[in-house]
């Protein structure tokens, strides 16, 4: 470049800037307040070379939604091709993945300018975020991204413009790919290389060729290269980058999933790679992963979704790698061969199921899931079909599917056969036995057979304990047992059981545990901390569980619905009612879609919603909801609704909390009769029912009968759930006030208020403060009494309860 060109203002005096100004003067941009399609422009978010991004909202009033509205500048309209654009847009709109910002709408203005409405994605670009992360976390981000891209590729969609500014990382650390397919839409209208980003243009893009999935893989590789920044990385990661960004598309990874898989290897292999055992260790990792059951499940899904080619290809690749270093890895090779055989057998098995569809079914129509499963179960149970190891995988996979659908009767014989098989090979493959037993234990738990469940889970743990390669199986069984322990009311013990799992989750070897196991552990830890009243930590674990469930199972999945419903539980306690209600209703909507019969999950969500309604001053709705909840609960357990033990318990609980003791009393008395008739009711049932009854009795002056109930509680045992303990203290205080012992009552109430100081429990706390006021009055401390009453009134108003006496405040 000549020196002369670098003069002051040089950039503003050439033809380029003149053209820029000309274009500026010609192009009409959308204005704030303007309506385009179904959208109204709210304000500008940013602008770049190829267009402007606005914040827009739906203007047709169909529902509230805000989007990032992208308007593509260009000095020429779209030449025809409307059909192409419309088809592509439809495909894009069908993308549903947590790590991809959805295309919501799109169109052309009258002047032929393109616009797109996308999910609003907030956050920093991936390279900005990467600066603050260790290499490992950076690679994990990219790994997640590869899976998202693969999801789209499988649906025939190509991004075409993967680059740092198109990958935003939200405040939970989740990456989100934006502008999916826009490059191609632009391409359809304006030629394949329109507006591409020089640094991120793949060789074939630069040559002006059509976009392909290989081009996305190149860009992912380029992104990885940029994200490693100046960090010195090992030769393995360099090799991954080299392969992804190979000049010739055929030499790159065949799919984004294959790139993801290799990044996964790198992530899993790192601890030992540092000791110099790189390749051999990676192989060992893979073998371990494939020996674990979940790999079979993953393969099964891959086979169903992508056709078997990918899953078997991946294993075949590893076999070749193992052969190359066969001398040192003979044993590993054998294991790989075995895993390959398993995947192939499963593949053939599943394909066979589809082939053997009913004669009457048209060729292009898929057999329904029920028929497929049934056929699969028949074959898996038939001992002659395949070798034991493969059969085991099929049995467990099918059992898992049935259990997910809540069809335990169909799952039971499959699990029993799987356990039998696994016992035969327990010596060589202890993790299989542990996994199968853990599932059996879980089923027993779901069916209310707590003791049997505990025994089976203990056996599962014992089978896996200290065995090489059985770490995940052990953690799985232990997490299930902790969950059971918690359900039995032994919260502290449950937390202690989970401590070693928690430690592993926090270590840098967390990903040696399968994602499903991690999800279970986060779920259990969140629930237990919540029960202990530590909502901050509960929310921490819970948000990881929500994200994990969404990633693992999808946004519309049962797993995600469960986590949303659980999240709502903590939100209620923290007083975040609006978000809690949203999450509960979303979970219920998902359950409605998934289940066509009564299930405990929906019953529990209804129950939480009933609580929320009661705590926010909507008593009639609350009672209606608790009716729906307990009815579904009874139906799910196959019991007559009117006789279900928890129905009266929950009705009584809510009625009393809503200050309707006369209606609560008969409910609680009936519940007590039912609990006392049971062999081993969960401890909190009979205890809390007595506590609430005692409260009613003492309030009404029946002191002796109230005190008798409290004495019985002492005999029954202790609870460690914070909300229960606070309730119990409240009951004791009621009776102490009635007995004329203000000092004891004050102490009990202060402890109760300290135990449950949750913003969402304003109703509970208002009643406790009021009682505290009465106790102070009784003790002759009028000033403190006044303050306590005031506090109660404020809280009562906050809980949406009408109170004539609060008008003075």
């Amino acid at each position, binding site marked *: *470049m000549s*020196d002369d*060109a*670098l*003069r*002051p*203002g*040089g*950039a*503003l*005096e*050439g*033809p*380029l*800037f*003149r*053209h*820029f*100004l*000309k274009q*500026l*003067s010609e192009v009409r941009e959308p204005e704030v307040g303007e309506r385009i399609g179904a959208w109204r422009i709210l304000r*500008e*978010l*940013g*602008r*770049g*070379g*190829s267009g402007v991004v606005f914040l827009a909202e739906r203007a047709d009033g169909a529902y509230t939604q805000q989007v990032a509205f992208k308007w593509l500048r260009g000095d*020429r309209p779209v*030449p025809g091709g409307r059909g192409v654009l419309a088809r592509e847009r439809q495909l894009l709109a069908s993308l549903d993945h947590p790590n991809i910002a959805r295309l919501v709408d799109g169109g052309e203005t009258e002047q032929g300018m393109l616009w797109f409405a996308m999910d609003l994605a907030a956050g920093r670009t991936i390279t900005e975020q990467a600066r603050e992360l260790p290499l490992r976390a950076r690679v994990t981000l990219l790994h997640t991204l590869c899976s998202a891209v693969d999801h789209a590729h499988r649906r025939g969609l190509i991004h075409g413009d993967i680059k740092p500014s198109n990958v935003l990382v939200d405040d939970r650390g989740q990456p989100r790919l934006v502008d999916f397919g826009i490059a191609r839409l632009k391409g359809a*209208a*304006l*030629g*394949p*290389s*329109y*507006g*591409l*980003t*020089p640094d991120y243009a793949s060789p074939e893009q*630069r040559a*002006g060729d059509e976009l392909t999935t290989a081009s996305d893989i190149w860009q992912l590789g380029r992104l990885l290269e940029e994200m490693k920044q100046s960090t010195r990385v090992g030769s393995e990661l360099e090799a991954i980058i080299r392969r992804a960004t190979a000049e010739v598309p055929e030499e790159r990874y065949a799919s984004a999933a294959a790139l993801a898989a290799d990044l996964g290897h790198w992530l899993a292999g790192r601890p030992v790679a540092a000791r110099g055992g790189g390749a051999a260790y990676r192989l060992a990792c893979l073998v371990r992963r494939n020996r674990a059951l979940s790999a079979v499940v993953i393969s099964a899904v891959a086979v169903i979704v992508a056709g078997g080619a990918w899953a078997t290809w991946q294993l075949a690749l590893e076999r070749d790698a193992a052969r190359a270093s066969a001398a040192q890895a003979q044993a590993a090779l054998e294991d790989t061969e075995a895993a390959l055989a398993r995947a192939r057998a499963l593949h053939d098995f599943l394909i066979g199921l589809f082939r053997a569809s009913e004669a009457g079914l048209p060729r292009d129509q898929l057999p329904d899931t029920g028929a497929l499963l049934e056929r699969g179960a028949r074959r898996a149970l038939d001992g002659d079909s395949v070798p034991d190891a493969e059969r085991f995988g099929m049995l467990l996979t099918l059992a898992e599917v049935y259990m997910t659908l809540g069809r335990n009767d169909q799952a039971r014989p499959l699990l029993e056969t799987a356990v039998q098989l696994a016992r035969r090979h327990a010596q060589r493959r202890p993790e299989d036995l542990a996994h199968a037993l853990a599932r059996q234990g879980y089923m027993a738990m779901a069916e209310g057979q707590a003791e049997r469940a505990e025994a089976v889970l203990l056996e599962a743990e014992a089978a896996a304990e200290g065995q090489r390669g059985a770490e995940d199986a052990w953690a799985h069984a232990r997490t299930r047992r902790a969950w059971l322990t918690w359900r039995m009311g032994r919260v502290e013990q449950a937390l202690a059981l989970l401590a070693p799992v928690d430690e592993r989750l926090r270590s840098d070897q967390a990903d040696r545990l399968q994602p499903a196991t991690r999800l279970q552990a986060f779920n259990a830890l969140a629930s237990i901390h919540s029960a202990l009243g530590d909502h901050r930590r509960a929310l921490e674990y819970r948000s990881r569980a929500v994200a994990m469930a969404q990633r693992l199972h999808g946004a519309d999945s049962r797993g995600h619905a469960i986590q949303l419903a659980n999240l709502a539980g903590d939100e209620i306690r923290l007083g975040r009612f609006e978000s809690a209600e949203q999450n509960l209703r979303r979970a219920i909507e998902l359950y409605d879609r998934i289940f066509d019969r009564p299930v405990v999950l929906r019953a529990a969500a209804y129950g939480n919603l009933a609580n929320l309604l009661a705590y926010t001053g909507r008593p009639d709705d609350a009672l209606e909801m608790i009716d729906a909840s307990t009815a579904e609960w009874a139906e799910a357990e196959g019991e007559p609704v009117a006789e279900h033990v928890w129905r009266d318990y929950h009705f009584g609980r809510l009625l009393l909390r809503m200050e309707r003791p006369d209606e609560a009393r008969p409910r609680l008395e009936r519940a007590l009769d039912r609990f006392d008739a049971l062999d081993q009711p969960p401890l909190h049932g009979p205890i809390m029912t007595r506590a609430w009854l005692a409260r009613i009795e003492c309030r009404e002056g029946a002191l002796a009968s109230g005190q008798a109930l409290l004495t019985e509680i002492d005999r029954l045992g202790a609870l460690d759930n914070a909300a229960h303990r606070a309730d119990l203290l409240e009951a004791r205080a009621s009776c102490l006030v009635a007995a004329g012992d203000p000092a004891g009552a004050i102490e009990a109430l202060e402890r109760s208020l300290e135990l449950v100081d949750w913003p969402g429990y304003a109703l509970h706390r208002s009643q406790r403060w009021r009682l505290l006021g009465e106790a102070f009055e009784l003790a002759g401390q009028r000033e403190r009494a006044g303050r306590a009453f005031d506090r109660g009134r404020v809280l009562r108003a906050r809980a949406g309860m009408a109170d004539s006496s609060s008008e003075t405040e």
Partner: protein
Amino acid sequence: MPGELTQLLQAANDGDQPALNRLVALLYVDLKQLAHRCRRGSQVLDTTSLVHECYLRFLEGGRLELNDRAHFFNLAARVMRQLLCDFARERLADKRGGGAVHFELREDDASEWAEAERFLAVDQALERLAEIEPVRARVVECRFFAGLTEEETAEAVGRSLRSVQRDWQLAREWLGRRLA
């Protein structure tokens, strides 16, 4: 009570992205007006002084403090570089897009493309320069891309006039060697 512009500039300077976006949008409106005037006046050669006028009008509208002027010049330089380089990329993409979608080939396309390539080369070289001599890179941004005067550049980078003159000279030499 400081004016909107002062608040925006301070927020943008503190790294507030929405404030920065709003400022860019505001500046853009002024550039558009400038563009319209250019069109009406058909033969305008001294676009640099027009753009410069545009900055000053922008500043006058806001009743700014001294410090804000520095923030503004800094920002304007960044924005102009970004806009021009984005546009250059777009134009080069048009070139690569080939004839199929090209309706008309303008006469000055060839010189525009050559200029676009030069801009992008300078842009890339500046990235390198920013790693070793960040102030010099900013001086080039202010002088070359935004057409700021020496005094304004000194304000923007917070250096003396003399050191800005020296930086500009050294940076030009460095770039000249690199882009030769």
